[in-house]
C-alpha cells in the first residue's frame, strides 16, 4: 500500500502538443481516486505516466515516497487493468493470474494460494482452467482484476476498465470493483470518461480538462460545490442547465433576471457574495433535479419558473421536460404523476439554494 504524489507533471508530445500541463495531485494510502474528463483531457496519459508506460516530460511521480520517474514499470510495484482486458490469449485463467508471480519466482504453493484467494474474491474459481476466449466480457474483466489482485501491489491502476461492457454488466462490475477495493484496500487510481462511474466509485474525483485539473474533491462536493463551469456541466446527468442572466438589486434584495424577463430571487445568505456582480453579465446554472414541478414544501427560496414544454421524456421514475429559453435548452425533472403536455404552459419550482452563478469572464463559480 502506498500514497502516490504527482508534482508539476507535464507530458508533451513531438510537435509541442501538451497532453498534461503541470498537474499536482496527492493520493493518500488506501484511497480510491478517479480521474474523469472528456476524451483528450490527459487522464489516460497521466495514468500511463504513473504506470511507467509513458515517459514524463517534466515533473515528478513518487509512489510510496520513492521517486519513480526513471524506474521501469516492472519495478514500480503497480498492477494495471486495461480497457480491453489484455489477457494473454494462449494462457489459462490460472496462468494469466499467476504470470506476474511466476516471473518474480514466487514458490508454486504461494502462487496457488494467492490465485485461489483472488479467484474466490472475484467468484471465478470455476473458470481457472479456461482460456480467455471461452470467457464472457465480464468474466474477462474479473480475470484482469484477479491478475492485479494476486500481485498485492502498492497501487492499482484502472484504465477505463468497464468501457467495453454493456450497460447492465457495467453497473454490476462497478459494484464488484467497489467491493474488491473495500476488501483489499489497495490505493487505486481509476480513469474513466463516465461521470457516474466516477461519482459512484471514488473517495475523491479528479476532474480534468485540456491537460489540467479543474477540481479535486469528494463526489458530493463536486456535485454541490463545483469550482468551474466545466465541472458544473460535466458532473451530473442530465447536465446542469446554463443560461445567461443579469444580477439586479442590492445586497438586501438581489434578483437573477433571465433573458425572458423572469426574475429569480437570490437567497439572502448569498446576496453579499454576489453583490459586486450587480449589473454585470453572469451565467446562472441550475441542475434539472432542482427545477421541478410545484408541490407543497416547507423549503425556503423556491422560485416560480414559467416554462412551455417542447419535448417530454417519461423515464418511469421521473419525467424529463425540455424547453428552450432564448436559444438555451433547459431540462427539468418532474414527478411522473405530474400532468404535463407539449405546448401547455406550466410553472416549475426552481430551488434557488441549489443554483450557481458563474462569472463568464473566468468560468469560475462564484
Amino acid at each position: 500500500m502506498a500514497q502516490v504524489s504527482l508534482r508539476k507533471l507535464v507530458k508533451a508530445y513531438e510537435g509541442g502538443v501538451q497532453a498534461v500541463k503541470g498537474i499536482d495531485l496527492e493520493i493518500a494510502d488506501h484511497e480510491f481516486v478517479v480521474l474523469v474528463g472528456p476524451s483528450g483531457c490527459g487522464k489516460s496519459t497521466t495514468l500511463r505516466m504513473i504506470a511507467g508506460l509513458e515517459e514524463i516530460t517534466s515533473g515528478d511521480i513518487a509512489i510510496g515516497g520513492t521517486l519513480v520517474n526513471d524506474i521501469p514499470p516492472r519495478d514500480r510495484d503497480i498492477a494495471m487493468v486495461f480497457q480491453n482486458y489484455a489477457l494473454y490469449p494462449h494462457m489459462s485463467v490460472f496462468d494469466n493470474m499467476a504470470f506476474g508471480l511466476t516471473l518474480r519466482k514466487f514458490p508454486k504453493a504461494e502462487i496457488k494460494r494467492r490465485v485461489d484467494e483472488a479467484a474466490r474474491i472475484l467468484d471465478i474459481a470455476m473458470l481457472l482452467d479456461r482460456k480467455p476466449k471461452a470467457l464472457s466480457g465480464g468474466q474477462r474483466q474479473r480475470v484482469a482484476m484477479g491478475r492485479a489482485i494476486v500481485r498485492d501491489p502498492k497501487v492499482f491502476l484502472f484504465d477505463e476498465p468497464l468501457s467495453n461492457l454493456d450497460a447492465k454488466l457495467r453497473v454490476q462490475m462497478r459494484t464488484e470493483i467497489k467491493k474488491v477495493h473495500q476488501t483489499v484496500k489497495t490505493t487505486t487510481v481509476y480513469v474513466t470518461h463516465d461521470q457516474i462511474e466516477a461519482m459512484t466509485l471514488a473517495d475523491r474525483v479528479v476532474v480534468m480538462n485540456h491537460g489540467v485539473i479543474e477540481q479535486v474533491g469528494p463526489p458530493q462536493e463536486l456535485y454541490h460545490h463545483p469550482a468551474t463551469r466545466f465541472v458544473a456541466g460535466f458532473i451530473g446527468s442530465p447536465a446542469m442547465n446554463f443560461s445567461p442572466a443579469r444580477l439586479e438589486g442590492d445586497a438586501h434584495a438581489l434578483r437573477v433576471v433571465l433573458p425572458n424577463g423572469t426574475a429569480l430571487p437570490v437567497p439572502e445568505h448569498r446576496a453579499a457574495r454576489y453583490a459586486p456582480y450587480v449589473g454585470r453579465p453572469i451565467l446562472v446554472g441550475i441542475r434539472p433535479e432542482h427545477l421541478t414541478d410545484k408541490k407543497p414544501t416547507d423549503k425556503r427560496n423556491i422560485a416560480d419558473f414559467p416554462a412551455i414544454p417542447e419535448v417530454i421524456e417519461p423515464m418511469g421514475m421521473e419525467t424529463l421536460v425540455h424547453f428552450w429559453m432564448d436559444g438555451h435548452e433547459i431540462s427539468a425533472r418532474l414527478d411522473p404523476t405530474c400532468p404535463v403536455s407539449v405546448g401547455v404552459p406550466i410553472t416549475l419550482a426552481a430551488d434557488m439554494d441549489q443554483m450557481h452563478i458563474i462569472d463568464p469572464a473566468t468560468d469560475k463559480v462564484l
Partner: protein
Amino acid sequence: MSASTVSKAEGIYAKAGSLSSERRWALWTAYASLIFAAIIFLAPPVYMFVTSLKGSAEVANMTGNPWLVRNPTLENYTTLLSNRPFLKFFLNSAIITVCVVAITMVISILAAFALARMRFWGSQFLATGVFLTYLIPDTLLFIPLYQIVGGLGLLNSIWGLVLVYPTLTVPFCTWIMIGYFASIPKELDEAALIDGATWPQMLLKIFIPVAMPGIIAATIFAFTVSWAAFVYPTAFVTTPDQMPLTIGVVSQLVRADTFAWGQIMAGALLAALPPVIIYAFLMDYYIAGLTAGATKG
C-alpha cells in the same frame, strides 16, 4: 384481387426468381473457374506421377495416350531409393533446409519484434527497407554472392548455401512477422511489462506463443524457398556429394542428351513430398499467418 395487384405480385416473384438464377450462375462460374484452375495446377504433378510409373521403353514409345500407363512399375522409385547419390542429395537438402529455417526464424523473429514494437529512430524506414530487399531477384544477386562465398572458401559446400539462402528467406519472413506482431494488441506487452517481464521474456512468453500462426507461416515459406532453391546451388555447387536435391536430380539423371525421364519424375515427386506433407498439416496456420500479415502489415 384486382388485375394490378396480380401483376404486382408476379413482379415480386419474377424478381425473386431472377435473384436465385443469379446465385446459381455465380455458383456455376465459381465451380467452373475452380475446376479449370485445379486442372492447370494438377496436370503437371499428375503427368509426373504417371510418367514415374512407366519403364524407359514405355516413356520412349510415342504411340498411344501419354497420360495412361500400360505396364505400371515401381522400378524408377526402387532404383532411385537404392541409389546412394540420390539419398545424399536428400540428406544435403534436409541439412541445408533445417539450418536455413532455424537461422531465418531466429533473425526474422528478433528483427520483426524490434521493428514492430520498439520505438527507435528509423524503424519505419528499416521495416520498408527489409521488404524492398526481397524484391531483388536471386538471378541478380548470385554474382556478388559468388564473390563473397568464394572469398569465404565456401564454394562447393552446403555451408555456402546455408549462408546465402537466408538472403532469400529473411526479408519476406521478417515482413510477415512484422505484420503479425503489429496485429497483437499493444496492451498485451504493456500488461507483460507491468507484470514484470523483460523484453526477452515478453518475446519468449507472450509474442512467440501468440504469433505462432505467423511463425508457422514464415517457417513454411522459409522451408519451401530453401528446399526448392535452384539458382544458387546451380551457381555455387558443382561437386555431386554437396548437391541438394533440386540440382542433384537434374545433374545425375540427365547424361548429355539422355534423359532418364521416369527417374527424373520419380525423383521430383519424392523431392516434392516433404513440402506437400508440411502444407497438408499446417495449411490452416499458413493461411491465418499470411492473412494477419496482409491486413495489418
